[in-house]
């Protein structure tokens, strides 16, 4: 099927066999199936191998600084709520360098989708520990093994009452695509943490390991129960995949609550400041 988000002749900067290739295909398919318009979609990313994703997608993009995709994505959405905004990077970028923004993006609840490629290692900088690297794992830098506790993004997001929290695996094309579609359609901040093997630097968490250490939540699972979702997020032997949590109480988004959109729904760039009105206000300073 022809996909308008495809671009040809790209010199892709990923290693052969990298999980990013499947994520790229999955995302382009999901966006196409949702009939997103290229002109009205913005992909925002930070820096890292995962963050190169927008380079290979035929849509608007903002490839910013390491760790800073979420503030940019927030501002793009808020300045023009007609845009579909996807913020995408690796877990080092989103949870390490950008960890503070992750917490506050959850609190704000801007209607954006946050996709995190979680390969449990720093890829681009060649194999140092990431916030989610397993304890004990030896890396190019942590040569005696990692001693820090791994960061649990799902537990953090659920405990903060994030609007939509899901986990996926790059090896499962269909399931992951459906999860991403749900996330994009969801009104409010939606985070999808995607397990992704790194063939070059993470020999422990490879394709087989992720297969073995994950399972899909079944139909009986109630994603609206925060306490149950939190319990699920603490399962570390076998990680649950699917939509872990949706917060029914997060009914309005950040941008809907802004005074600037109270009566006027137009994107900011379409509005013209009435300078006479400002001068009148200034005259009140006499």
């Amino acid at each position: 099927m022809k996909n308008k988000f495809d671009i040809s002749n790209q010199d892709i900067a990923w290693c052969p066999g990298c999980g990013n290739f499947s994520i790229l295909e999955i995302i382009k398919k999901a966006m196409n199936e949702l009939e997103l318009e290229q002109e009205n979609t913005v992909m925002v990313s930070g820096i890292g191998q995962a963050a190169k994703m927008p380079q290979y997608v035929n849509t608007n993009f903002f490839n910013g600084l390491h760790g800073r995709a979420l503030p940019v994505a927030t501002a793009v959405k808020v300045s023009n709520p007609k845009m579909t905004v996807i913020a995408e990077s690796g877990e080092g970028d989103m949870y390490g360098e950008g960890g503070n923004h992750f917490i506050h993006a959850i609190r704000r609840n801007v209607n954006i989708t946050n996709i995190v490629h979680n390969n449990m290692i720093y890829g681009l900088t060649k194999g140092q520990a990431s916030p989610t690297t397993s304890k004990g794992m030896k890396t190019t830098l942590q040569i005696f093994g990692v001693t820090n506790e791994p960061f649990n993004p799902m537990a953090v997001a659920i405990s903060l009452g994030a609007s939509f929290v899901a986990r996926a695996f790059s090896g499962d094309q269909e399931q992951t695509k459906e999860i991403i579609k749900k996330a994009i359609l969801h009104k409010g901040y939606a985070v999808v943490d995607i397990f992704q093997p790194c063939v070059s630097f993470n020999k422990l968490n490879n394709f087989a390991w992720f297969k073995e250490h994950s399972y899909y939540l079944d139909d009986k699972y109630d994603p609206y129960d925060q306490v149950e979702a939190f319990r699920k997020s603490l399962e570390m032997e076998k990680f649950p995949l699917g939509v872990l949590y949706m917060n029914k109480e997060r009914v309005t988004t950040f941008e809907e609550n802004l005074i600037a959109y109270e009566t006027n729904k137009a994107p900011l760039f379409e509005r013209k400041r009435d300078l006479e009105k400002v001068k009148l206000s200034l005259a009140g300073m006499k």
Partner: protein
Amino acid sequence: MDKRDNFFKEDVSIVLCGEAGQGIKTIELILVHVLKKSGYNVFGTKEYMSRIRGGSNSTIIRVSDKNVKSMKDKIDILIPLDSKAIEHVADRLSDNTIILGDKELLTDTKYEIIDIPLLKIAKEIGSKIYLNIVACGVVLALFNSNLDLLNEFVTEKFESKGKAIVDNNIEAAKSGFELGKALYDDSKVRIDIKRDPKIKDDYFLNGNDAVGYGALMGGCNFISSYPMSPGTGVLTFLSEHSKEMEIVVEQAEDEISAINMGIGAWYAGARALVTTSGGGFALMGEGISLSGIIETPIVVHIAQRPGPGTGLPTRTEQGDLEVALYSGHGEFPRIILAPSSIENTVKTTAEAFNLADKYQVPVIILTDQYFLDSFYNTKKLDLDIKVDDKIIKTDKDYKRYKLNASGISPRGIPGFGDGLVHVDSDEHDEYGRLTEDLDIRVKMTDKRLHKLDSIKKDIIEPVFTGNKDYETLVIGWGSTFNVINDALKEINNKKIGYLHFTQVYPISDKIKPYLDKAKNIIIIENNATAQFAKLLKIVTGVEIEHKILKYNGMHFYLEELVEKINEVAGDK
């Protein structure tokens, strides 16, 4: 009493000083506004400590028969509201200073005091919290004024707190007024400065209002910032106007987020401002650099305070010129503006947005605590401003970084036109996609740097005042304009010329002849290392010999500049 000059006919400097929490800020707001509305030329400013309670804070109110725009060192009338107040301003007292105070508050003081029972009256009304309004009443009576305007202000200010509070405050004002009137009638203190009813209709803003209105006039519709004194005022200002002017206001989680949001907003078509102080700006360095490479505009307001580190959080300094100049790694152009007076701040700030949009570079506005907190009345503001929106509608094959002669590629935004807009903090090709092609790298660097040539043709030129045949040239930048100007008026020496910069970067080589012509050059800066003099040397090669520098956290007083300029410039 004999030594004292207790009748004020031309100029008076009144200082009210007390602890944080005693309502010194309220006194200042009420008095400067009531006096100005009564037709006086008023200058007001404050200095305060970084704490919520205790310490010593003061407000300086200068009233004159001329439109003065600076503060004096020597205090004519001091009203201390607590026991530490006199010591706090001790080195600004002279033999002629009149101290009006309540001896009950000012035990064991060696100073001669005209005793007025401020505290007793406040307590009789209900509480010592009324002390500040009693003091306002005293001051107004010294001007032989009346209570009407004061009552109006007090009612407006305390209305939300209920009738009882309003009534008590009105009572406090009245009792204070009676105390002051007795002093006036007994010829103990009299202020008989000429009024001009036309002053009522002057603009009356402080620097903070002026920057805020400038942002509004520049079309600013987005602000994301993290609180940091003295930069927070502009954030609050825009929040207060967010409904009527439709502004998106967000308190970011940190300054890194703030600037990245600001840049993201410009990318999507907004006109964003970020306000902060030096410490917060230091965290924004990478963001400035991002704006440089992706050529997405950003406007940052740095409200300077003394560093390094946390420094003196509530004080003033012109110490961040160099960080503004050199922040952000890599090589790219920028523009730095330092508003110099209330009159030119609205326009300069508005212009920052137009310049950022036109040249697609970071534009930094440098103010400082003193400037932001100082008020004076003025007849005319430069409001010849338009919002010059440069966003284009994109075509199908849009190239965000199309190479051309000027280096300025037309800027599209996502969702407006048929094209796609790619911006990339990695080196990129004309489409905005990442590249490691080293030839393109050179082309893109040249393109970005080339913009500086156009920027230089669009400079806000420095203002020269004084005699063209000067021997001594005085140079200042930013917030020092008014005090230097007032000092030179007082000195009135035909051999002095004065060159003041509102745009501090880039500056044009056209200024070199000004420097070459002078026998003496004096640079005046509110910092320790003469940062602007260093920049002038880079541009002109001229080393400036005489430096008047101040870096104790306070702005210049009129008298000290008069004295120091005279030392260098000599006789008339």
